[in-house]
């Protein structure tokens, strides 16, 4: 369950991003989760709703976008996307590569409702 610690880091960053904004409530948080992150969407969701309780995130919805990973071929230098192993370069058919990213748990955006000014 490392999803729990990832999610508590997520809330830390999200709260930071919203700091100083007139937020009444948060509606959605959109995460992009790489397939190499070993973070399961179900477990992330569970952690999200458990940790959101009694915070401004309480009624928010979590949207998870599954992201693949980018591969750079050592042989021909081309870049391509992959989702699983084994990896073979579609251009030169060699299997000699570096994996660039794909392990991220990335907060893309937060949608929120504004606190109305009271004059």
């Amino acid at each position, binding site marked *: 369950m490392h999803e729990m610690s990832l999610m508590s880091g997520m809330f830390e960053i999200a709260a930071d991003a919203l700091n100083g904004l007139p937020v009444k409530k948060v509606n959605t948080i959109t995460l992009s989760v790489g397939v190499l992150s*070993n973070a399961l969407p179900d477990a992330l969701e569970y952690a999200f709703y458990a940790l959101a309780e009694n915070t401004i995130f309480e009624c928010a919805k979590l949207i998870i976008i599954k992201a693949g990973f980018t591969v750079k071929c050592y042989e021909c230098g081309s870049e391509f996307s992959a989702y699983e192993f084994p990896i073979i370069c579609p251009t030169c058919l060699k299997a000699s590569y570096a994996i660039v990213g794909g392990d*991220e748990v990335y907060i893309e955006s937060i949608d929120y409702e504004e606190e109305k000014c009271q004059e």
Partner: protein
Amino acid sequence: MPRINVNKDVKDLNRQQAEKNREIFLENAVFTINIIGSPGAGKTTLLENILPILAKKYRICVIEGDLETDNDAERIRKANIQAVQINTNGGCHLDAFMIAKELKALDLANKDLLIIENVGNLVCPTGFDLGEDMRIVVMSIAEGDDKPKKYPVAVVNTDAIVLTKTDLLPYIDADIEKMRKTIFEIKPEIKLFETKKASSIYEANELIAHIEKSINTKSR
């Protein structure tokens, strides 16, 4: 409805601390190894066997990660090597912050090698950089020859794999050739080592030589 674009990786929190740890290791000229593997793969046994040999050349300290008990730290101390124990109380992995807390107690200025034995788990620890110079995944052949294929992230995110308990091959249904092949399919440049206990002697000479070579390359 207002939207704020955050564009931040949650893993950066750990990554930034890992970089700080890496700087501390560099300042103190300490080579650090993070050892990852399932419970029972043979991580502590590997250390019990290779550390006394490495200790002839290097000043070593060990951080042991476990959910409960300090059994593993005790096993390492029996070999006269300094060991501290982190109990995660249910947590499935070590992170860079937990390591940072332990560093003061280790007297790194007078050490050459720090070994971190992660919590027994082939999934969660693979996503957390601790600031190490080298990562070693320990897999026993008794776990089954499909494990590299089932846990590709563990293979991708490591420098070396040690296949342990190869002396059990005659007694179990595991195809070690298949394991080797899958590992190289996932990560062609990986270093692969095999260990066994033959007539009560633990054989890990190639692994020890590789660790020594890596330490010497860094300190040069």
